[in-house]
Protein backbone atom coordinates (compact mmCIF):
# COMPACT_ATOMS: atom_id res chain seq x y z
CA UNK A 1 0.00 0.00 0.00
CA UNK A 2 1.17 3.53 -0.76
CA UNK A 3 1.78 5.95 2.08
CA UNK A 4 -1.14 8.12 1.03
CA UNK A 5 -4.20 7.03 -0.93
CA UNK A 6 -6.89 9.33 -2.29
CA UNK A 7 -10.37 7.98 -2.92
CA UNK A 8 -13.44 9.73 -4.19
CA UNK A 9 -16.90 8.87 -2.94
CA UNK A 10 -20.27 10.11 -3.93
CA UNK A 11 -20.39 12.52 -1.02
CA UNK A 12 -16.74 13.58 -0.81
CA UNK A 13 -13.09 12.62 -0.76
CA UNK A 14 -11.18 10.49 1.65
CA UNK A 15 -7.41 10.36 2.08
CA UNK A 16 -6.13 7.25 3.79
CA UNK A 17 -2.79 7.49 5.57
CA UNK A 18 -1.10 4.09 5.66
CA UNK A 19 -0.98 3.07 9.30
CA UNK A 20 2.23 1.07 8.76
CA UNK A 21 4.15 3.84 7.01
CA UNK A 22 6.56 6.26 8.63
CA UNK A 23 4.72 9.45 9.56
CA UNK A 24 7.41 11.76 8.12
CA UNK A 25 7.17 9.92 4.81
CA UNK A 26 3.41 10.32 4.93
CA UNK A 27 3.73 14.06 5.41
CA UNK A 28 6.07 14.34 2.43
CA UNK A 29 3.70 12.35 0.22
CA UNK A 30 0.75 14.31 1.49
CA UNK A 31 2.43 17.60 0.52
CA UNK A 32 3.06 16.21 -2.95
CA UNK A 33 -0.53 15.03 -3.25
CA UNK A 34 -1.95 18.41 -2.39
CA UNK A 35 0.46 20.22 -4.71
CA UNK A 36 -0.78 17.98 -7.54
CA UNK A 37 -4.38 18.43 -6.55
CA UNK A 38 -3.87 22.19 -6.61
CA UNK A 39 -2.49 22.01 -10.15
CA UNK A 40 -5.46 19.91 -11.25
CA UNK A 41 -7.77 22.30 -9.58
CA UNK A 42 -6.35 25.35 -11.32
CA UNK A 43 -7.33 23.82 -14.65
CA UNK A 44 -10.94 23.39 -13.68
CA UNK A 45 -13.41 25.85 -12.17
CA UNK A 46 -12.56 26.93 -8.62
CA UNK A 47 -14.75 25.12 -6.13
CA UNK A 48 -13.67 24.28 -2.58
CA UNK A 49 -13.11 20.66 -1.57
CA UNK A 50 -13.23 19.04 1.82
CA UNK A 51 -11.46 15.80 2.81
CA UNK A 52 -11.89 13.09 5.38
CA UNK A 53 -8.51 11.96 6.66
CA UNK A 54 -8.62 8.27 7.58
CA UNK A 55 -5.74 6.94 9.68
CA UNK A 56 -6.78 3.29 9.85
CA UNK A 57 -5.30 1.55 12.88
CA UNK A 58 -3.13 4.54 13.78
CA UNK A 59 -4.28 7.27 16.17
CA UNK A 60 -2.87 10.71 15.45
CA UNK A 61 -2.03 12.87 18.43
CA UNK A 62 -2.84 16.58 18.48
CA UNK A 63 0.59 17.52 17.19
CA UNK A 64 0.42 15.13 14.25
CA UNK A 65 -3.03 16.40 13.35
CA UNK A 66 -1.66 19.92 13.35
CA UNK A 67 1.08 18.95 10.93
CA UNK A 68 -1.49 17.50 8.55
CA UNK A 69 -3.67 20.56 8.92
CA UNK A 70 -0.69 22.83 8.22
CA UNK A 71 -0.16 21.21 4.85
CA UNK A 72 -3.80 21.50 3.86
CA UNK A 73 -4.14 25.07 5.10
CA UNK A 74 -1.67 26.25 2.42
CA UNK A 75 -4.46 25.74 -0.08
CA UNK A 76 -7.45 28.04 0.43
CA UNK A 77 -9.73 25.80 -1.60
CA UNK A 78 -8.98 22.66 0.42
CA UNK A 79 -10.01 21.82 3.93
CA UNK A 80 -10.22 18.86 6.29
CA UNK A 81 -13.70 17.69 7.08
CA UNK A 82 -12.68 15.33 9.88
CA UNK A 83 -10.16 12.75 11.02
CA UNK A 84 -11.37 9.16 11.29
CA UNK A 85 -9.75 5.95 12.41
CA UNK A 86 -10.77 2.37 12.98
CA UNK A 87 -9.29 2.29 16.51
CA UNK A 88 -9.75 4.29 19.71
CA UNK A 89 -8.08 4.71 23.09
CA UNK A 90 -9.29 2.30 25.72
CA UNK A 91 -10.15 5.25 27.92
CA UNK A 92 -12.34 6.78 25.22
CA UNK A 93 -13.93 3.39 24.63
CA UNK A 94 -14.75 3.02 28.32
CA UNK A 95 -16.22 6.47 28.33
CA UNK A 96 -18.34 5.56 25.34
CA UNK A 97 -19.61 2.45 27.10
CA UNK A 98 -20.28 4.52 30.21
CA UNK A 99 -22.28 6.98 28.16
CA UNK A 100 -24.40 4.23 26.67
CA UNK A 101 -25.06 2.34 29.88
CA UNK A 102 -28.15 2.70 32.04
CA UNK A 103 -26.70 3.18 35.51
CA UNK A 104 -28.70 1.95 38.46
CA UNK A 105 -28.51 4.53 41.24
CA UNK A 106 -30.03 4.17 44.71
CA UNK A 107 -28.31 7.06 46.47
CA UNK A 108 -29.77 9.66 48.77
CA UNK A 109 -29.08 13.05 47.22
CA UNK A 110 -29.42 15.66 49.92
CA UNK A 111 -29.87 19.42 49.89
CA UNK A 112 -26.80 20.96 48.26
CA UNK A 113 -25.52 17.72 46.77
CA UNK A 114 -25.15 17.00 43.06
CA UNK A 115 -25.10 13.45 41.71
CA UNK A 116 -23.47 13.41 38.27
CA UNK A 117 -24.06 10.46 35.99
CA UNK A 118 -22.53 9.76 32.60
CA UNK A 119 -25.12 8.14 30.40
CA UNK A 120 -28.63 7.15 31.38
CA UNK A 121 -29.74 6.59 34.93
CA UNK A 122 -32.37 4.38 36.47
CA UNK A 123 -32.87 6.20 39.75
CA UNK A 124 -34.39 4.40 42.72
CA UNK A 125 -33.01 6.58 45.50
CA UNK A 126 -34.15 9.67 47.37
CA UNK A 127 -33.68 13.07 45.78
CA UNK A 128 -34.25 15.70 48.46
CA UNK A 129 -35.24 19.32 48.03
CA UNK A 130 -32.17 21.29 46.98
CA UNK A 131 -30.39 18.20 45.65
CA UNK A 132 -29.61 17.72 41.95
CA UNK A 133 -29.71 14.47 39.96
CA UNK A 134 -27.85 15.17 36.76
CA UNK A 135 -27.26 12.76 33.88
CA UNK A 136 -25.69 13.26 30.48
CA UNK A 137 -28.38 10.94 29.12
CA UNK A 138 -31.94 10.05 30.04
CA UNK A 139 -33.34 9.91 33.56
CA UNK A 140 -35.74 7.06 34.38
CA UNK A 141 -36.86 7.34 37.94
CA UNK A 142 -38.80 5.27 40.46
CA UNK A 143 -37.32 7.24 43.33
CA UNK A 144 -38.55 9.99 45.55
CA UNK A 145 -38.03 13.10 43.44
CA UNK A 146 -38.28 16.24 45.52
CA UNK A 147 -35.23 18.05 44.19
CA UNK A 148 -34.00 19.01 40.74
CA UNK A 149 -33.74 16.51 37.88
CA UNK A 150 -31.46 17.37 34.98
CA UNK A 151 -31.29 15.08 31.93
CA UNK A 152 -29.13 15.57 28.84
CA UNK A 153 -26.55 17.61 30.72
CA UNK A 154 -25.06 19.80 29.32
CA UNK A 155 -26.55 19.94 25.83
CA UNK A 156 -28.41 16.82 24.73
CA UNK A 157 -31.91 18.05 24.01
CA UNK A 158 -32.87 14.54 22.82
CA UNK A 159 -32.73 13.25 26.39
CA UNK A 160 -35.95 12.69 28.30
CA UNK A 161 -37.12 12.21 31.87
CA UNK A 162 -39.64 9.51 32.79
CA UNK A 163 -41.11 9.11 36.25
CA UNK A 164 -43.17 10.77 38.94
CA UNK A 165 -42.23 14.45 39.07
CA UNK A 166 -45.30 15.58 40.99
CA UNK A 167 -43.22 16.82 43.93
CA UNK A 168 -40.11 17.80 41.94
CA UNK A 169 -38.78 21.36 42.29
CA UNK A 170 -37.37 21.74 38.79
CA UNK A 171 -36.86 19.68 35.67
CA UNK A 172 -34.07 20.53 33.29
CA UNK A 173 -33.12 19.02 29.95
CA UNK A 174 -29.99 20.28 28.19
CA UNK A 175 -30.23 24.07 28.61
CA UNK A 176 -34.00 24.26 29.21
CA UNK A 177 -35.44 24.66 32.70
CA UNK A 178 -38.94 24.45 34.16
CA UNK A 179 -39.73 25.51 37.70
CA UNK A 180 -42.61 23.28 38.72
CA UNK A 181 -45.41 24.85 40.71
CA UNK A 182 -47.19 22.77 43.31
CA UNK A 183 -49.68 20.43 41.62
CA UNK A 184 -48.59 21.56 38.15
CA UNK A 185 -47.75 17.99 37.23
CA UNK A 186 -50.11 15.17 38.08
CA UNK A 187 -49.17 12.53 40.60
CA UNK A 188 -48.31 9.83 38.06
CA UNK A 189 -45.30 7.57 37.68
CA UNK A 190 -45.64 7.79 33.91
CA UNK A 191 -44.93 11.41 33.24
CA UNK A 192 -42.49 12.05 30.41
CA UNK A 193 -40.59 15.31 30.00
CA UNK A 194 -38.91 16.18 26.72
CA UNK A 195 -37.71 19.15 24.70
CA UNK A 196 -40.16 19.79 21.86
CA UNK A 197 -39.61 21.27 18.38
CA UNK A 198 -39.86 24.79 19.77
CA UNK A 199 -37.03 23.94 22.19
CA UNK A 200 -39.39 24.18 25.15
CA UNK A 201 -39.97 21.55 27.83
CA UNK A 202 -43.15 19.61 27.21
CA UNK A 203 -44.95 16.96 29.21
CA UNK A 204 -46.62 13.83 27.97
CA UNK A 205 -47.27 10.26 29.06
CA UNK A 206 -45.22 7.11 28.80
CA UNK A 207 -47.27 5.75 25.90
CA UNK A 208 -46.09 8.64 23.72
CA UNK A 209 -42.35 7.91 23.95
CA UNK A 210 -42.52 5.95 20.71
CA UNK A 211 -43.73 9.04 18.90
CA UNK A 212 -41.50 11.68 20.40
CA UNK A 213 -38.26 9.65 20.62
CA UNK A 214 -38.51 6.72 18.19
CA UNK A 215 -34.78 5.98 18.35
CA UNK A 216 -34.77 5.75 22.11
CA UNK A 217 -37.88 3.62 21.97
CA UNK A 218 -36.28 1.05 19.68
CA UNK A 219 -33.05 1.13 21.69
CA UNK A 220 -35.14 0.15 24.70
CA UNK A 221 -36.41 -2.83 22.79
CA UNK A 222 -39.75 -1.42 21.73
CA UNK A 223 -41.14 -2.01 18.27
Amino acid sequence: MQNVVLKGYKDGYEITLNADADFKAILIDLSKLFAELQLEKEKSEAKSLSFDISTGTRLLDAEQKQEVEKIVSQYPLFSIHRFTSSVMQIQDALEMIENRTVHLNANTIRNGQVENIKGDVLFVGDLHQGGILRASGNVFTFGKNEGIIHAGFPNDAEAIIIGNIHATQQVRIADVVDILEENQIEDSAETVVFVNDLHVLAYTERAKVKMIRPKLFTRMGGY
Partner: protein
Amino acid sequence: MGKAIVITSGKGGVGKTTTSANLGTALALADKKVCLLDLDIGLRNLDVILGLDNRIIYDIVDVVQGRAKLHQALIKDKRFDEKLFLLPAAQNADKSVLKPEEVKDIVDELKPDFDYVLIDCPAGIEQGFINAVAGADAAIVVSTPEISAVRDADRVIGLLEKESLDEPPMLIINRIRTHMMNDGQVMDVDEITRHLSIKLLGIVFDDDQVISTSNKGEPIVLNEKNLAAQGYRNIARRLLGETVPLMNLDSEEKKGLIQRISSWFKKN
Protein backbone atom coordinates in the same frame (compact mmCIF):
# COMPACT_ATOMS: atom_id res chain seq x y z
CA MET B 1 -11.59 4.80 75.00
CA GLY B 2 -14.40 7.34 74.92
CA LYS B 3 -16.53 8.42 72.00
CA ALA B 4 -16.49 11.90 70.49
CA ILE B 5 -19.86 13.17 69.26
CA VAL B 6 -20.30 16.45 67.42
CA ILE B 7 -23.61 18.26 67.93
CA THR B 8 -24.43 20.24 64.84
CA SER B 9 -27.33 21.66 62.81
CA GLY B 10 -26.45 23.96 59.96
CA LYS B 11 -29.05 26.51 60.96
CA GLY B 12 -28.31 28.70 63.95
CA GLY B 13 -30.27 28.92 67.17
CA VAL B 14 -32.01 25.55 66.96
CA GLY B 15 -30.59 24.28 70.23
CA LYS B 16 -27.12 22.82 69.69
CA THR B 17 -25.66 24.42 72.79
CA THR B 18 -28.73 23.64 74.90
CA THR B 19 -28.53 20.02 73.71
CA SER B 20 -24.80 19.80 74.44
CA ALA B 21 -25.28 21.09 77.99
CA ASN B 22 -28.29 18.94 78.80
CA LEU B 23 -27.13 15.76 77.14
CA GLY B 24 -23.74 16.14 78.80
CA THR B 25 -25.40 16.66 82.17
CA ALA B 26 -27.77 13.72 81.65
CA LEU B 27 -24.84 11.44 80.79
CA ALA B 28 -22.96 12.65 83.87
CA LEU B 29 -26.05 11.90 85.98
CA ALA B 30 -25.96 8.40 84.48
CA ASP B 31 -22.46 8.09 85.92
CA LYS B 32 -20.56 8.64 82.68
CA LYS B 33 -17.50 10.85 82.54
CA VAL B 34 -18.18 13.62 80.05
CA CYS B 35 -16.14 16.45 78.54
CA LEU B 36 -17.97 19.24 76.73
CA LEU B 37 -16.00 21.02 74.06
CA ASP B 38 -17.25 24.46 73.05
CA LEU B 39 -16.11 25.17 69.50
CA ASP B 40 -18.22 28.24 68.94
CA ILE B 41 -15.12 30.40 69.05
CA GLY B 42 -15.96 34.07 69.53
CA LEU B 43 -19.54 33.37 70.63
CA ARG B 44 -19.13 30.94 73.49
CA ASN B 45 -22.13 30.26 75.69
CA LEU B 46 -21.97 26.66 76.78
CA ASP B 47 -20.18 27.93 79.89
CA VAL B 48 -23.04 30.31 80.66
CA ILE B 49 -25.75 27.67 80.37
CA LEU B 50 -23.77 25.45 82.73
CA GLY B 51 -23.14 28.36 85.09
CA LEU B 52 -19.39 27.98 84.71
CA ASP B 53 -18.61 31.28 83.00
CA ASN B 54 -17.03 32.86 86.08
CA ARG B 55 -14.49 30.13 86.37
CA ILE B 56 -12.80 30.34 82.99
CA ILE B 57 -9.07 31.00 83.09
CA TYR B 58 -7.81 29.32 79.96
CA ASP B 59 -9.64 28.32 76.80
CA ILE B 60 -9.13 26.00 73.83
CA VAL B 61 -7.12 28.58 71.90
CA ASP B 62 -4.75 28.95 74.84
CA VAL B 63 -4.23 25.19 74.72
CA VAL B 64 -3.63 25.10 70.97
CA GLN B 65 -1.24 28.03 71.11
CA GLY B 66 0.71 26.54 74.01
CA ARG B 67 -0.21 29.03 76.73
CA ALA B 68 -1.85 26.32 78.82
CA LYS B 69 -1.87 22.55 79.19
CA LEU B 70 -5.10 20.77 78.34
CA HIS B 71 -5.81 19.74 81.94
CA GLN B 72 -5.29 23.33 83.12
CA ALA B 73 -7.98 24.60 80.79
CA LEU B 74 -10.60 21.98 81.72
CA ILE B 75 -13.26 23.33 84.08
CA LYS B 76 -14.84 20.84 86.44
CA ASP B 77 -18.56 21.12 87.17
CA LYS B 78 -18.56 20.60 90.93
CA ARG B 79 -22.20 19.51 90.99
CA PHE B 80 -21.33 16.17 89.42
CA ASP B 81 -18.24 15.07 91.29
CA GLU B 82 -15.53 14.39 88.70
CA LYS B 83 -18.08 13.53 85.99
CA LEU B 84 -18.61 16.68 83.95
CA PHE B 85 -15.92 18.93 82.46
CA LEU B 86 -15.89 21.80 80.02
CA LEU B 87 -13.20 23.01 77.66
CA PRO B 88 -14.38 26.55 76.92
CA ALA B 89 -14.17 28.37 73.61
CA ALA B 90 -12.13 31.55 73.28
CA GLN B 91 -14.13 34.75 73.39
CA ASN B 92 -11.79 37.20 71.67
CA ALA B 93 -10.66 35.13 68.71
CA ASP B 94 -12.00 34.01 65.38
CA LYS B 95 -12.95 30.52 64.19
CA SER B 96 -10.05 30.59 61.77
CA VAL B 97 -7.44 30.51 64.56
CA LEU B 98 -8.09 26.77 64.89
CA LYS B 99 -7.18 24.17 62.33
CA PRO B 100 -9.05 20.86 62.01
CA GLU B 101 -5.93 18.83 62.92
CA GLU B 102 -5.47 20.88 66.08
CA VAL B 103 -9.02 20.21 67.20
CA LYS B 104 -8.63 16.54 66.36
CA ASP B 105 -5.45 16.35 68.45
CA ILE B 106 -7.30 17.78 71.45
CA VAL B 107 -10.24 15.42 71.03
CA ASP B 108 -7.87 12.48 70.68
CA GLU B 109 -6.09 13.55 73.84
CA LEU B 110 -9.39 13.74 75.75
CA LYS B 111 -10.93 10.48 74.57
CA PRO B 112 -8.89 8.06 76.71
CA ASP B 113 -9.88 9.94 79.88
CA PHE B 114 -13.62 10.30 79.20
CA ASP B 115 -16.60 8.16 78.23
CA TYR B 116 -18.01 10.92 76.05
CA VAL B 117 -16.57 14.04 74.44
CA LEU B 118 -19.45 16.22 73.23
CA ILE B 119 -18.46 18.86 70.70
CA ASP B 120 -20.74 21.92 70.47
CA CYS B 121 -20.53 23.03 66.85
CA PRO B 122 -21.13 26.62 65.70
CA ALA B 123 -23.88 27.31 63.15
CA GLY B 124 -22.97 27.17 59.46
CA ILE B 125 -20.96 24.81 57.30
CA GLU B 126 -17.70 26.70 57.05
CA GLN B 127 -14.46 26.59 59.02
CA GLY B 128 -16.14 26.23 62.42
CA PHE B 129 -18.13 23.23 61.23
CA ILE B 130 -15.10 21.63 59.62
CA ASN B 131 -13.12 22.07 62.84
CA ALA B 132 -15.91 20.61 64.97
CA VAL B 133 -16.32 17.53 62.81
CA ALA B 134 -12.60 16.85 62.50
CA GLY B 135 -12.20 14.80 65.66
CA ALA B 136 -15.69 13.31 65.88
CA ASP B 137 -16.57 9.61 65.78
CA ALA B 138 -20.31 10.25 65.56
CA ALA B 139 -22.69 13.13 64.98
CA ILE B 140 -25.99 14.36 66.34
CA VAL B 141 -27.94 16.68 64.08
CA VAL B 142 -30.37 19.02 65.84
CA SER B 143 -33.34 20.43 63.97
CA THR B 144 -36.56 22.15 64.88
CA PRO B 145 -39.76 21.28 62.98
CA GLU B 146 -39.36 24.38 60.79
CA ILE B 147 -38.80 23.68 57.10
CA SER B 148 -35.73 25.91 56.95
CA ALA B 149 -34.11 24.05 59.85
CA VAL B 150 -34.95 20.69 58.28
CA ARG B 151 -33.45 21.80 54.95
CA ASP B 152 -30.25 22.88 56.66
CA ALA B 153 -30.17 19.63 58.60
CA ASP B 154 -30.43 17.77 55.29
CA ARG B 155 -27.52 19.77 53.91
CA VAL B 156 -25.41 19.06 56.97
CA ILE B 157 -26.27 15.35 56.97
CA GLY B 158 -25.06 15.23 53.37
CA LEU B 159 -21.75 16.77 54.44
CA LEU B 160 -21.47 14.48 57.46
CA GLU B 161 -22.06 11.40 55.33
CA LYS B 162 -19.04 12.40 53.25
CA GLU B 163 -16.87 12.46 56.39
CA SER B 164 -15.79 9.02 57.42
CA LEU B 165 -17.49 8.91 60.80
CA ASP B 166 -17.80 5.57 62.55
CA GLU B 167 -21.59 5.65 62.44
CA PRO B 168 -24.32 7.45 60.51
CA PRO B 169 -25.58 10.74 61.98
CA MET B 170 -28.48 10.72 64.47
CA LEU B 171 -31.34 13.18 64.74
CA ILE B 172 -32.80 15.22 67.60
CA ILE B 173 -35.94 17.23 66.90
CA ASN B 174 -36.02 20.13 69.34
CA ARG B 175 -38.58 22.78 70.32
CA ILE B 176 -41.60 20.69 69.44
CA ARG B 177 -44.88 22.49 69.98
CA THR B 178 -47.46 19.75 70.07
CA HIS B 179 -50.47 21.84 69.13
CA MET B 180 -48.76 23.09 65.96
CA MET B 181 -47.64 19.60 65.06
CA ASN B 182 -51.01 18.05 65.79
CA ASP B 183 -52.72 20.75 63.75
CA GLY B 184 -50.44 19.99 60.84
CA GLN B 185 -48.97 23.50 60.83
CA VAL B 186 -45.45 22.12 60.92
CA MET B 187 -43.92 18.84 59.78
CA ASP B 188 -44.49 16.08 62.31
CA VAL B 189 -41.87 13.85 63.87
CA ASP B 190 -42.47 11.04 61.42
CA GLU B 191 -42.33 13.27 58.39
CA ILE B 192 -39.09 14.90 59.48
CA THR B 193 -37.46 11.60 60.33
CA ARG B 194 -38.57 9.98 57.12
CA HIS B 195 -37.48 12.97 55.09
CA LEU B 196 -34.02 13.08 56.58
CA SER B 197 -33.80 9.27 56.64
CA ILE B 198 -31.49 9.03 59.63
CA LYS B 199 -32.05 7.46 63.02
CA LEU B 200 -34.18 9.49 65.41
CA LEU B 201 -32.38 9.76 68.73
CA GLY B 202 -35.14 11.69 70.41
CA ILE B 203 -37.45 14.66 70.63
CA VAL B 204 -37.54 17.63 73.01
CA PHE B 205 -40.58 19.79 73.66
CA ASP B 206 -40.48 23.54 73.52
CA ASP B 207 -40.61 24.75 77.08
CA ASP B 208 -40.14 28.20 78.58
CA GLN B 209 -38.29 26.68 81.49
CA VAL B 210 -35.47 25.66 79.16
CA ILE B 211 -34.74 29.33 78.71
CA SER B 212 -35.24 30.39 82.30
CA THR B 213 -33.07 27.61 83.70
CA SER B 214 -30.37 28.30 81.10
CA ASN B 215 -30.32 31.87 82.30
CA LYS B 216 -29.65 30.63 85.82
CA GLY B 217 -26.86 28.36 84.72
CA GLU B 218 -28.78 25.21 85.63
CA PRO B 219 -29.48 22.89 82.71
CA ILE B 220 -33.17 21.97 82.54
CA VAL B 221 -32.34 18.27 82.68
CA LEU B 222 -31.76 18.62 86.43
CA ASN B 223 -35.48 19.24 86.85
CA GLU B 224 -36.79 15.68 86.64
CA LYS B 225 -40.46 16.61 86.32
CA ASN B 226 -40.01 18.87 83.32
CA LEU B 227 -41.00 17.39 79.95
CA ALA B 228 -38.07 18.85 78.04
CA ALA B 229 -35.81 17.41 80.72
CA GLN B 230 -37.37 13.98 80.22
CA GLY B 231 -36.69 14.33 76.52
CA TYR B 232 -32.99 14.90 77.22
CA ARG B 233 -32.83 12.06 79.73
CA ASN B 234 -34.40 9.70 77.21
CA ILE B 235 -31.89 10.79 74.61
CA ALA B 236 -29.03 10.03 77.01
CA ARG B 237 -30.50 6.58 77.75
CA ARG B 238 -30.84 5.77 74.05
CA LEU B 239 -27.27 6.89 73.50
CA LEU B 240 -26.26 4.42 76.20
CA GLY B 241 -28.03 1.66 74.32
CA GLU B 242 -31.33 1.42 76.15
CA THR B 243 -34.59 1.08 74.27
CA VAL B 244 -36.85 3.90 75.37
CA PRO B 245 -40.19 4.60 73.68
CA LEU B 246 -40.74 8.00 72.15
CA MET B 247 -42.56 10.49 74.36
CA ASN B 248 -46.23 10.87 73.67
CA LEU B 249 -46.89 13.92 71.59
CA ASP B 250 -50.06 14.90 73.45
CA SER B 251 -48.67 14.58 76.94
CA GLU B 252 -48.06 18.31 76.89
CA GLU B 253 -51.72 19.16 76.85
CA LYS B 254 -53.17 15.81 77.89
CA LYS B 255 -55.50 15.79 74.93
CA GLY B 256 -58.37 13.36 74.81
CA LEU B 257 -58.50 10.60 72.25
CA ILE B 258 -61.38 12.23 70.39
CA GLN B 259 -59.48 15.45 70.03
CA ARG B 260 -56.44 13.59 68.81
CA ILE B 261 -58.37 11.76 66.15
CA SER B 262 -60.14 14.87 64.96
CA SER B 263 -56.89 16.80 64.65
CA TRP B 264 -55.50 13.86 62.76
CA PHE B 265 -58.36 14.06 60.31
CA LYS B 266 -57.89 17.76 59.85
CA LYS B 267 -54.44 17.14 58.52
CA ASN B 268 -55.61 15.16 55.53
